[in-house]
């Protein structure tokens, strides 16, 4: 009982162990010169995948078939529209943030309307939604590259006691998500729905309401991430979200959240996000190309799912 309970209870340990190993290997190769810079870069870029990853995790917890593929498009649209609205004025920072959140709410609502009313599987509903969002982003962008407001750009690129501000934001959001997941009624509900939709319905859980809120939450987090990423990188680009499609799902899976739903894991998302960034920088340091990096990322995901599957059979 105890050993397998331990494995089931702390699947995130593996992603942190892997992170430490990769960090050491990379630092050794560069002779220890880059250890601070590498850690800071890892925290910064991990922060963005943590924010989208948390949203994706809530959706995946809802059970088999639940996934949000509109995440990259939502990030792009949110970044584009927020920067256009703020128009380099510091006074508009809050308005831009609220606009991003609003975009997230609308996208999430749209996703669930497609899923529920038209009875389209989530994978197709969110994918078709992402074409609509991406088209809106293209139409409103028109090749303009607007800089973020000075204050916002400074905030996203600077750090507090050596820890990047975006990482602090991501950490704050993780804590909130953890409380929501572990302590609130809502967290119990999504876990119940992920295990058995019928049983959840019969335990008087408002299944559709909960799922709607979850899809909206995921889209809001993606929009927030787009807002921060656009400000961090000095402007929105139409392809800024594309790598987060795979990344948002990968960090959830590698982090130890059950792909079949019902069981989720927030510390693991941090471990997985840091790990994936470090793998990429390690391969860069060793001089491997982009193609090889993608192959390796794919292999890592396959191996993790295989191991996770093996763990389930202990039950």
């Amino acid at each position, binding site marked *: 009982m105890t050993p397998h309970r331990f494995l089931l209870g702390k699947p995130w340990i593996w992603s942190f162990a892997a992170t430490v190993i990769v960090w050491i290997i990379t630092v050794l190769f560069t002779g220890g010169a880059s250890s601070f810079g590498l850690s800071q870069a890892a925290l910064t870029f991990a922060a963005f995948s943590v924010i989208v990853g948390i949203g994706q995790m809530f959706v995946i917890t809802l059970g088999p078939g639940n996934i949000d593929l509109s995440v990259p498009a939502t990030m792009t649209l949110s970044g584009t529209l927020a920067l256009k609205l703020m128009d380099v004025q510091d006074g508009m920072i809050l308005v831009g943030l609220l606009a991003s959140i609003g975009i997230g709410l609308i996208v999430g609502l749209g996703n669930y309307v497609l899923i529920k009313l038209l009875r389209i599987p989530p994978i197709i509903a969110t994918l078709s939604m992402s074409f609509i969002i991406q088209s809106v982003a293209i139409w409103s962008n028109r090749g303009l590259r607007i800089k973020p407001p000075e204050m916002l750009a400074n905030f996203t690129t600077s750090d507090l006691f050596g820890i990047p501000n975006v990482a602090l934001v991501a950490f704050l959001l993780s804590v909130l998500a953890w*409380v929501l997941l572990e*302590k*609130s*009624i*809502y967290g*119990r509900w999504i*876990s*119940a729905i992920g*295990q*058995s939709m*019928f*049983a*959840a*319905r*019969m*335990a*008087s*859980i*408002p*299944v*559709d*309401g909960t799922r*709607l809120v979850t899809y909206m939450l995921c889209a809001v987090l993606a929009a927030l991430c787009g807002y921060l990423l656009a400000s961090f990188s000095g402007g929105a680009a139409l392809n800024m979200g594309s790598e987060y499609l795979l990344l948002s799902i990968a960090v959830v899976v590698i982090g130890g959240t*059950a792909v079949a739903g*019902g*069981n989720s894991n927030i510390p693991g998302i941090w471990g997985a996000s840091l790990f994936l960034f470090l793998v990429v920088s390690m391969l860069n340091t060793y001089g491997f190309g982009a193609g090889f990096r993608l192959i390796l990322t794919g292999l890592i995901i396959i191996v993790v799912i295989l191991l996770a599957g093996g763990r389930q059979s202990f*039950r």
Partner: protein
Amino acid sequence: MTEVLKRDEVVAARGVRVTFGAVKALDGADLVIHSGECVGLVGHNGAGKSTIVNVINGGLTPHEGTITYGGQDERGISAARANGVRCVFQELSLCPNLTVTENARIMHPDLKGWNWRSGALALVEAHLQEIFPGHSIDGDSTVDDLSIAERQMVEIAISFAGTDKKPKLVILDEPTSSLDAGLAAQLMAYIRKFVSEGGSVLLISHILGEILSTSDRIVVMKDGRVTADRAAGEFSTRSLVEAMGNVVREQEWARAAATKTGEPVLSMPPRRGHGLAFEAYRGEMIGLAGLGGHGQTEALLDLYLDRNSNWWPTRRREIAFVAGDRSLNGTFPLWSILKNLSVASLGQLSTNRMVDRMREETLGESWKKRIEIRTPDMDNRILSLSGGNQQKVLFARALATTADIVLMDDPMRGVDIGTKQEVYDILRSEAANGRTFIWYSTEMDEIRLCDRVYVFREGAIMEELIGEDITEKNILAASFSEGAAA
């Protein structure tokens, strides 16, 4: 006498025992079918009818006893088919995406060659015409496009059809469940003709009129045994119903004296536009009886879902549900016992939508004591419990809520007798405190615990029994239609 009959045996199952875990589905049953006779098989739910059919058609290998086809000891589905045994199941077994002729090809592998379609078409049409003269089924239409009755007709026709060799024994499990009276009469006439030509038929039906008029011999099963096996002429509807049940046992429970007081707490108009309306009053224990699958679970689900929003959390719980059916399982397998128990009462256990762990544990401990969940630790996983104890957790989940009405969907299936007694006591005391229980059960002993019983047949409520009228005999009589009105 035995010498003569043995030669004519088509199928003989003797001393057959089949057990599923602790459940004895067949407990030494004998069933011998001779050529040129129609045997009617009747019995209440779980009497072992389907199990013995599955033994005869080769789908199940008995754990004890012998099964012989025409005197030869053979086993398996192919052996049964080779000996001319055909089966028409209650749940239709045609492929809905194929045409009628293509389905005939599946059942008759000897329809071969480049022109098998015309052969199959001729075969199906000839038999449909023979059994149901004047039908209007096109052999080239897809099964999906046919009505339920037409599908049943096609399946019956395909089963009676034979290319090289004619079937020796056709098993018909509720063949008229979707046929109207006219078509049913045509089928019964055909059965008589088939039998007079030397074939045999095993007829299972809940319409006793059909059984009495069509069979030569009637076999009654109860609790996995054959309790009566006599010529059809010796039975009347009444004696048949009596043979299916046992003699009315004495009442173990003092029922609530006054029922139907005040306004009904729950009501539902007659289902499917006929039968009786449903009403429940405060503090009542209401049983939903009848044969399995006649709409009781659907009625419970409708009652529940109508009063439970799928979009907004309900402020005050007025209704709770205890699932029992294994396929509609109510447990959350990844969770601990405590989380499984508390999931329906989270609202009353939280402040500002945050679950209070202390209050949750107190609730868990009190129910662990009250309903005797046998576990050292409520934080153990739910799957570490035995089936009966899991079921107790589901009971506790419903009873721990503030709901005044508790719906129960055959919750005691597969639960041992000791657990049952414990739960019955709790239900009684909760009912005395003013809770209303609506209880679908396939077990007669449980139905007899209720204050009032609605008997379901074909999706609607056909009979209401109150107090002393709740006897096995009355329930059986109401569950089986007498044929005339069907």
